[in-house]
């Protein structure tokens, strides 16, 4: 089973909604109360704390605020639902003792709330290999004086050791570099996109050879009345059947070469 990250973005509050029931009626799922835990990186280790127990059939919302008493600042907080409490301190991400489903995957609601409303998606997060890379074509920017656009790059790796890398932003049509940002592993990297001065017909391309991430795009009006949150597909999702992962490899090699990465 996967982790559920508490999201983080400017002027909104992140939260996770977990449900203790199976998403289907045929894959194995224990009908018992489960432990709700939070795992976060600290000084090269993963720290896990149990924050409650969720009876079978029930729902629990965990907000960033309630975690802030023991998790500092913008540290990545990962919620999990398990049959036993994971080890309190570990060098690698704790292995979660819980049920796993596939059609569909067990998911939680990953949300951001403003004072007015909320935006969310159903998701989960599994660790990326440390040699992973990123290729994201992102047609999500919205253009209005009152609208702010952000990229939330979510990375998770087995090791809690800190490392950093770079993400570069191009106009896909002109292969010209529009910006470059430092990113960190085991983090939600918040990148403001409006300063890159993209035009409406231009297609932003985000690439990194240093780490893989989930690229989540967040748009909001300044007062938080209107929001949008969605991630781009990994390149493998542009094809179906056959050797999809070879197709992803081809696309990454082709575009990394185009931008001389």
């Amino acid at each position, binding site marked *: 089973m996967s982790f559920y990250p508490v999201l983080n973005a400017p002027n909104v509050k992140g939260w996770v909604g977990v449900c203790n029931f199976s998403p289907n*009626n045929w894959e194995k799922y224990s009908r018992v109360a489960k432990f709700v835990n939070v795992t976060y990186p600290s000084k090269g280790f993963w720290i896990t704390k149990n924050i409650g127990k969720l009876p079978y059939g029930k729902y629990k919302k965990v907000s960033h605020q309630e975690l802030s008493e023991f998790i500092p600042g913008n540290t990545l907080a990962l919620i999990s639902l398990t049959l036993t409490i994971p080890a309190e301190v570990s060098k690698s991400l704790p292995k979660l003792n819980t049920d796993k489903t596939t059609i*569909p995957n067990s998911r939680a609601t990953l949300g951001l709330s403003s004072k007015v409303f909320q935006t969310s998606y159903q998701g989960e997060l599994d660790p990326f290999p440390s040699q992973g890379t990123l290729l994201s074509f992102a047609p*999500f920017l919205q253009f209005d004086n009152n609208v702010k656009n952000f990229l939330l790059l979510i990375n998770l790796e087995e090791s809690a050791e800190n490392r950093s890398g770079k993400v570069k932003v191009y106009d896909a*049509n002109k292969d010209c570099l529009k910006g470059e940002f430092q990113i960190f592993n085991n983090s939600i990297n918040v990148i403001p996109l409006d300063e890159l001065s993209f035009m409406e017909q231009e297609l932003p391309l985000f690439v990194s050879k240093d780490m893989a991430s989930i690229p989540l795009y967040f748009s909001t*009006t300044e007062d938080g009345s209107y929001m949008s949150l969605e991630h781009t597909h990994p390149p493998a999702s542009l094809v179906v059947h*056959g050797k999809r992962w070879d197709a992803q490899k081809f696309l990454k090699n082709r*575009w990394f070469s185009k931008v001389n990465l």
Partner: protein
Amino acid sequence: MVFKGQFVIIKFIERFRVLIWNWRQPLTVVPKNLNGVVSDLFIWRASNEWETYFELLDVVSLFEDSQSLNFVDIKIFNKSGFEVLQKKITLNKNSRQLINISNLISEEWGNVGTFAVFHSKNPTVVKELGSNIAERGYVSYTHKNSLIRSYVHGNLDAVTKMDDGKIELLGGASFLQRKYNLQYKFSNDAVHEIALVNPTNKQKKITFQVVSFEKGKVVDSKLIQLKPAACEIFKIKTGELDGVRLIIKSRLVMARPLIFSTKNFNLNVFHG
């Protein structure tokens, strides 16, 4: 009392039980035609309150260069799954093209339906990998003229277009009745609607059940017959103290819904 081989037997029974649910019941079938291009069946909503947009990307040119411009065929279906419009749109390479799907909709087609976006060809390298190019991209919606669009991506390789232009639905059917238990809490502070598409080539009986978190009991239910490529919008009944959740019963391998939550002018849209 534990006997020798007990765990082997238990494991065998479990494997057999899972096999009943998986054998010859894929989530989607493989298109017969290697030249076939694939699309999701996206939901469109068009009315005084709703507008639907789609981000057209030249996915073919992401894989290969060509001298000529590529295009997409957009096929629009009404709520009952009948094709009502086909439109060809030329694409700009490596650029964004946002189209307003609602502007293509005629009032007589109703205010909800589905649409598919087929790219002009399956790129050579994709064909060589035994794969088919798929459009599962980005729809967005506005509600009551909201200032920004709310995006949601497609999920399923629901339909393929063949060389003769005909379409074939690819959704997998289940032998046994399945439950899709949406892992989400519908609260009382918004209006929630869910949309479901039948991506299979046979009519399906679908039951929507709304269950109270507090009582654990069904507080609302609706049974429909959903034709191939058809869609249905179901409004979630709220009012329960601790919120409600949704169960979708059907013989679809995965009845994944699209959820629209609105509060005045605000909109949150996401898939299960």
